[in-house]
C-alpha cells in the first residue's frame, strides 16, 4: 500500500494492514519532524510533492524491495503540507517471515525514497528564515 496524504499518518491502521499469518517480523520506520536541523531550531516543515511521479517512484522502490526480499505486505505513506514538531512525515512498514528481511527492506525503502522520490521539504526556522531543498 502506497500513499501520499495531507492528513496525519495513522500507525495503528498501518500495523493492521501489515498483518499476515506468515509474518514473524514487522519493521516500522517513522520519519518525524525534529525540533532542529544542524542545531538550528526549526518551527515547522512544509512538504510539497509532484504527486503522480512521487507515487510511481515510491511504487518502483517497493517493487524492487519485493524482488530483493521476501516481503508479505508493505506500507509506504508520505505526508505532504504543513507539519509541526513531532509529526510523522513518512511511515514505512514491512512484514516478513524473518526479521533480517524486514530490517533490510525497510531501510532500503527509506534510503531510496530520500534519493529519488520527487518530494521537497521547506524548513521554516524559529527565526523566520526559510530554507528550501536542504538535503539531509
Amino acid at each position, binding site marked *: 500500500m502506497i500513499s501520499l496524504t495531507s492528513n496525519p499518518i495513522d500507525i495503528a491502521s498501518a500495523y493492521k494492514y501489515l498483518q499476515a499469518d506468515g509474518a514473524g517480523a514487522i519493521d516500522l520506520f517513522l*520519519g518525524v519532524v525534529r525540533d532542529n536541523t544542524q542545531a538550528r531550531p526549526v518551527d515547522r516543515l512544509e512538504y510539497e510533492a509532484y504527486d503522480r511521479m512521487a507515487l510511481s517512484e515510491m511504487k518502483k522502490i517497493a517493487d524492487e524491495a519485493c524482488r530483493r526480499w521476501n516481503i508479505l505486505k508493505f506500507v509506504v505513506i508520505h505526508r505532504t503540507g504543513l507539519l509541526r514538531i513531532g509529526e510523522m512525515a513518512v511511515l514505512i512498514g514491512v512484514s516478513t517471515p524473518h526479521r533480517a528481511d524486514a530490517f533490510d527492506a525497510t531501510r532500503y525503502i527509506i534510503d531510496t525514497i530520500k534519493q529519488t522520490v520527487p518530494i521537497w521539504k521547506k524548513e521554516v526556522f524559529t527565526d523566520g528564515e526559510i530554507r*528550501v531543498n536542504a538535503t539531509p
Partner: protein
Amino acid sequence: MNASINVLLFGITRDITGQTAIQHPLAPHARVSDLLIQLHGQYPRLADIRALLVAVNGEYAEPDTKLKSTDEVALIPPVSGG
C-alpha cells in the same frame, strides 16, 4: 501557430521563477537539453541548482529525450522527502 510545452515547477524552481508552471515555446525536434538551455537563459538562477533533473510524463528523462507539445515536463531539483 507556435507549439509550446507545459513545464511544472517544484521546490526551489518555484521560488526562482515565482510560478508553479510555465508554458514554454517548443522548437521542432527539441530535446530535454534544449529546453534546459532556454530555461537557464530565461532564469539564470536555475544554473545554481547543483543537480537539476527533468521528468517527462512522470519519469526521469535523459538530456537527449525528445519532447513533444503534449508531454508533461517537470523540473526536479534535488529531492528532500522522507
